């Protein structure tokens, strides 16, 4: 629905909120990229920067919620406008969570630099982070364009992130069994992998919300899931 409202101030309100979401999305993408880069390059300063920058993301979420409440109170949005307001509120929540995970990556990176290097893991985590960053980017593009196809594509791509997480989970388990001195580092790295996997879930949630925003229907069909670590066990001999 691209026709303008008769009341042009309503359009300005909606565009304003959308701009806040895009700004938030930009900051979150940078946070993921910087956090995983800091992890791979063992850059404590950059990790610290990511932690500090999270405050700006949190502030934007609050601003989105305030603006959304104002639009509901003043404009009484209906139909697609109502769905857009509900959507931006959920999107802001999702993005804020992703920001928190990135912040957590920063914290763990500061701890990890004191520990032995686990070969290959930081590089793999950075690739996983890039995958999630792309998903998030496309999910927000799908929101702005109202592109259901792209949103469905994002939703399907989460399976790859789950599979990357699975592979890392097994790798960390192996490292820890090989040498107990790896346990501290692997525990941190595992949390990082899990956090990135959760970021993917939030990107998926954003994509689903975009589908609702455009079609008015919440996608109900079971999406592909690749995380089967809940069933993993190792026997100690």
């Amino acid at each position, binding site marked *: *629905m691209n026709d*303008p409202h008769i009341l042009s101030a309503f359009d300005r309100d909606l565009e304003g909120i959308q701009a806040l979401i895009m700004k938030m999305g930009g900051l979150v993408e940078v946070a993921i990229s910087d956090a995983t880069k800091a992890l791979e390059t063992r850059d404590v300063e950059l990790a610290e920067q990511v932690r500090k920058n999270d405050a700006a993301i949190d502030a934007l979420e609050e601003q989105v919620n305030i603006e959304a409440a104002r639009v509901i109170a003043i404009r009484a949005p209906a139909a697609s406008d109502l769905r857009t307001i509900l959507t931006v509120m959920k999107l802001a929540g999702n993005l804020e969570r992703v920001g928190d995970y990135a912040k957590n990556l920063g914290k763990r990176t500061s701890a990890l630099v004191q520990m032995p290097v686990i070969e290959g893991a930081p590089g793999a985590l950075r690739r996983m982070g890039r995958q999630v960053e792309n998903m998030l980017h496309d999910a927000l593009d799908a929101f702005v364009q109202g592109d259901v196809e792209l949103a469905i594509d994002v939703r399907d791509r989460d399976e790859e992130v789950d599979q990357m997480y699975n592979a890392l989970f097994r790798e960390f388990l192996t490292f820890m069994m090989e040498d107990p001195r790896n346990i501290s580092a692997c525990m941190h790295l595992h949390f990082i992998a899990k956090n990135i996997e959760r970021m993917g879930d939030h990107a998926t949630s954003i994509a689903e919300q975009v589908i609702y925003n455009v079609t008015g229907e919440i996608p109900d069909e079971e999406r592909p899931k690749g995380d089967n670590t809940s069933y993993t066990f190792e026997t100690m001999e």
Partner: protein
Amino acid sequence: MKDIQLENRAVTDEKTKIAANNVNVYYGDTRAIKDVNIDIKSRTVTAFIGPSGCGKSTFLRCLNRMNDTIDSCRVEGRILLDNEDIYDTKVDPVQLRAKVGMVFQKPNPFPKSIYDNVAYGPRIHGLASKKADLDGIVEDSLRKAALWDEVKDRLQAPGTGLSGGQQQRLCIARAIATSPEVLLMDEPCSALDPIATAQVEELIDGLRTNFSVVIVTHSMQQAARVSQQTAFFHLGNLVELGDTDHVFTNPTDPRTESYITGRIG
């Protein structure tokens, strides 16, 4: 999810009270209503929305033959009330209007006392044989219209001396005094303040336990608040009829979407 609040909002009766088939209305050569088919369910509030001149009031007035009084107006098609054609020559319009009551946009009390305004319908239709019965009907109707407390001490004062909002509630009391089966309301709250509006909306919600209510309103929020079914009219066409919840969150027709979101359609 079986939520009690949501259940309450749902349509409670699937029975059709009024069925309109291929209704066309002409004012002279102008076709104001174009092939409208609609089922009005019993015990349900149906809201008619649409821009000015879309035909919603014209169509509403067909439902109790108020258009008979306009010489140039011609109604084609069939409108059935409980499966009986209301335009059949055997139907007495006066009896029909006792069954299908109406409240208008502008309050139009009779130049009589408050009591007589409400008692008028029951008297001419012989609904009360004793004075006490009639008193009961008058009080009950005024209470339902949320007016009793304000006028109980001056029932013999002229109805025209009341404020605009009170006059409208008096007209509602008058309309429900004959216990109609269907109540037609044409912009009943456009002259009322928010409190009186809320009282009328509360009354409408109460009425639907017994009657069908059809309300024409320009306030989309009012339509969303009081109705279970919403019909959107545009240029004499019935564009969309559906559950109110659905029409206001995800309408099917782009014209409905444009109208309720306040866009140039």
